[in-house]
């Protein structure tokens, strides 16, 4: 089996054994869900309901006229308690619709309304838009943006790399919903006009690779690309480079790259949106950590507070622990437990005190070169960190700071414990501002 990969990157311990053999199970419903009005990379929605309204599961409760936006839906039936500022996983507070469960129907009725064999692409695109689909791997780009036919794109690249430690939700999905995945890929391929589909899967998921291969063995247009187990293999640009060998210059459009990358979860969700008219009201979330009593891959309603999930998984006392939504390399640490799961939340990770990377004392760069060796973007994180630390934004910009994908390898590996990614994140808006004012 030829294993493909990219240059740079690092082997981060993957801690997947906690959950990789746990089948997807449905989590009990919370009493209250918190639905942020902004759950995608784009514009926030306007609420379509008001406090006191009765909502039904799957009902659209927020939408926007902007193109770069995706509607939000009620993930349970109940009564709108309030539309107010709540802590959101992306940091800070934002407008959310809070729904209190009532005794209405709480299961979405999976009734087939369309035939996946006989697809109407116009309706498919509309379903994706109306279903509020966004990239479920973490980027949260509205999916409907990339459903149009584009002449240059001949490849659909499905991202099943799942390179972040702890996370296994995509792994389980590929294993348990293989049929839906292949069907979803076919639909997606038709909609963007691609001729082939590549499934990029890291080789630490041999069962998933086998399951997909089993289903597509008679197909000419689909192929599994086994990828080396290396972080950040699942980042878009590196997946493209590894799977297709193509370079990914900055600002390149899909047509130029010849391919569109889609998360495996989103692919299945798009199929369900078309066949069952099912909006994005739930997703698979990996709940994991060395101390979690019942770690697993849970089907969780969007808007479920982390506190409910932790209670169900037997991990209520987490004083001095760290709660991370997403993967531990790029996810955000949360200030308290009342943070909702959103469409792009891949995991709920609880790191015990001995594992948390506290705000460590850092020292000056000692030029060991480990960050340079491992940087997947071929940058010089050592230099960039010095510039960004000292607010030398012009130098940092010339040093290609804006190319940084914030994968976190440099901070992970730095023996001087320098918070390089943190400085990069601080410098980026400042440099963007300068770039704009120059134009």
């Amino acid at each position, binding site marked *: 089996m030829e294993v493909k990969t990219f240059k*740079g990157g690092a082997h*981060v*311990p993957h801690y997947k054994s906690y959950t990789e053999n746990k089948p997807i199970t449905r989590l009990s419903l919370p009493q209250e869900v918190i639905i942020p009005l902004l759950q995608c990379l784009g514009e926030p929605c306007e609420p379509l309901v008001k406090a006191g309204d009765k909502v039904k599961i799957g009902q659209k409760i927020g939408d926007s006229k902007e193109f770069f936006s995706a509607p939000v839906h009620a993930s349970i039936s109940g009564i709108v308690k309030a539309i107010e500022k709540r802590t959101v996983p992306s940091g800070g507070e934002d407008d959310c619709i809070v729904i209190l469960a009532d005794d209405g129907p709480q299961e979405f009725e999976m009734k087939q309304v369309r035939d996946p064999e006989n697809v109407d692409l116009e309706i498919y695109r509309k379903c994706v838009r109306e279903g509020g689909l966004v990239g479920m791997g973490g980027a949260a780009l509205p999916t409907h943006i990339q459903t149009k036919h584009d002449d240059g794109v001949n490849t659909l690249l499905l991202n099943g790399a799942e390179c972040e*430690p702890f996370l296994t939700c995509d792994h389980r999905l590929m294993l348990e919903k293989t049929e839906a995945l292949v069907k979803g890929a076919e639909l997606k391929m038709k909609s963007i006009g691609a001729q082939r589909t590549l499934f990029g899967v890291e080789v630490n998921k041999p069962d998933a690779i086998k399951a997909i291969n089993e289903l597509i063995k008679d197909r000419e247009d689909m192929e599994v690309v086994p990828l080396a187990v290396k972080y950040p293999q699942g980042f878009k*640009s590196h997946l493209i*480079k590894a799977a297709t060998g193509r370079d*990914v*210059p*900055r600002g390149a459009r899909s047509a130029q790259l010849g391919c569109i990358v889609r998360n495996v979860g989103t692919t299945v969700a798009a199929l369900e949106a078309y066949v069952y008219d099912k909006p994005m009201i739930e997703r698979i979330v990996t709940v994991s950590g060395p101390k979690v009593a019942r770690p697993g891959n849970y089907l969780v309603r969007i808007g479920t507070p982390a*506190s409910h999930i932790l209670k169900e998984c037997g991990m*209520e*006392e*987490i*004083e*001095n622990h*760290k*709660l*991370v939504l997403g993967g*531990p*390399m*790029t*996810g*955000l*640490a*949360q200030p*308290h*437990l*009342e943070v909702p799961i959103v469409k792009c939340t891949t995991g709920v*990770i609880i*790191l015990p005190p001995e594992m*948390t*990377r506290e705000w460590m004392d850092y*020292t*000056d*760069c*000692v*030029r*060991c*070169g*480990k960050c*340079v*060796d491992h940087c*997947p*973007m*071929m*940058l010089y994180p*050592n230099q960039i960190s010095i510039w960004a630390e000292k607010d030398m934004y012009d130098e940092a910009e010339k040093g*290609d700071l804006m*190319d940084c994908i914030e994968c*976190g390898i440099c*901070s*992970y*590996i730095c*023996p*001087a*414990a320098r*918070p390089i*990614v*943190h400085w990069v*994140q601080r410098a980026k808006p400042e440099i963007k501002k300068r770039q704009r004012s120059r134009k």
Partner: protein
Amino acid sequence: MSYDQKLVLSPAPHLKAKDTVSSAMFDVIYALMPVTLVSVVLFRYYAVLLIAVCLVTAVLTELLFRKILNKPVTLHDGSAIVTGLLVALLFGPGTPWWTAALATFIAIGLAKELMGGLGWNRFNPALFGRVAVILIYPLFYNVTAAFASLRPYFGPIDTISQATPLAMLMQGADLLPLSHLFFAYAGGSLSETSALAILVGGIFLIYKKHISWHMPAAIIGAVFIMAMVMGENPLYHILAGGVMIGAFFMATDWVTSPITLKGKVIFGVAIGVLLMLFRVLLAPTEGMAFSILLMNAFVPMIDRVTRRPSFSEPKEKTVPLLKRPGVRKPPVHGVGR
């Protein structure tokens, strides 16, 4: 509601590799133990005294300069101990202790702390201290005489220390068997006693991924080839003098070597070539120290010329203008142009 639990908040990534600067420094100390032990066995108390003096001076100097510069004490990172030990290993057993102490003081005080501390020094501190005392040695004639009574006597030094192998090469004396140089030979500085001991330490550092094998290989390879070209005995040049300690412990210093692999190889080859030029054309000794220090000064330049483009840099840019499709070189007409 569970707002009341105190959670840890800090930016991503939330995992951290175990290596720290101080664990790496202590690995260097462990890696230096074989050669230190060999030198102590061969030179007895002379070696112990030098090492003790250098370690104490290193620690005191760092404390003093940190105090003067009003910076936090960073002894726990172990870099002062590494530098102190390295300085001691660069001297022969007959060296007066105050010379070694002064070298250590210059290494830590001038070459490291005044340059901005660990990470900002441009020159390898230990070598800088060593070479500094060579250059100011003439000033020491009087001091040496005045201090002579302060030198402890641990028995006749001539009986335990022999001529340095490089001096023998220069004087045209009978050369030592290579096996002596490789396993253990009581001549030259403490670090030159056993190539094998250095190699063991160096392999440990490579195994621990603190250094890459490319640089020592480049240095030793360059010395080998240069020696062949210049009609010298290549193995003798590699095993005698400071090539081994220089290649594995001095040139590979994180702070003062190029950052990319390519740069490291260029740096290593240049050191090997310079060393052989120094040894054959100039003085027989200290060639390694001078070539490494000289190349330290070129590190920013090496880093600049080996700079790699970003992953997202469009590749077309690197295609020369004339090779771009659509742009043709104008045809040459006649001879008169």
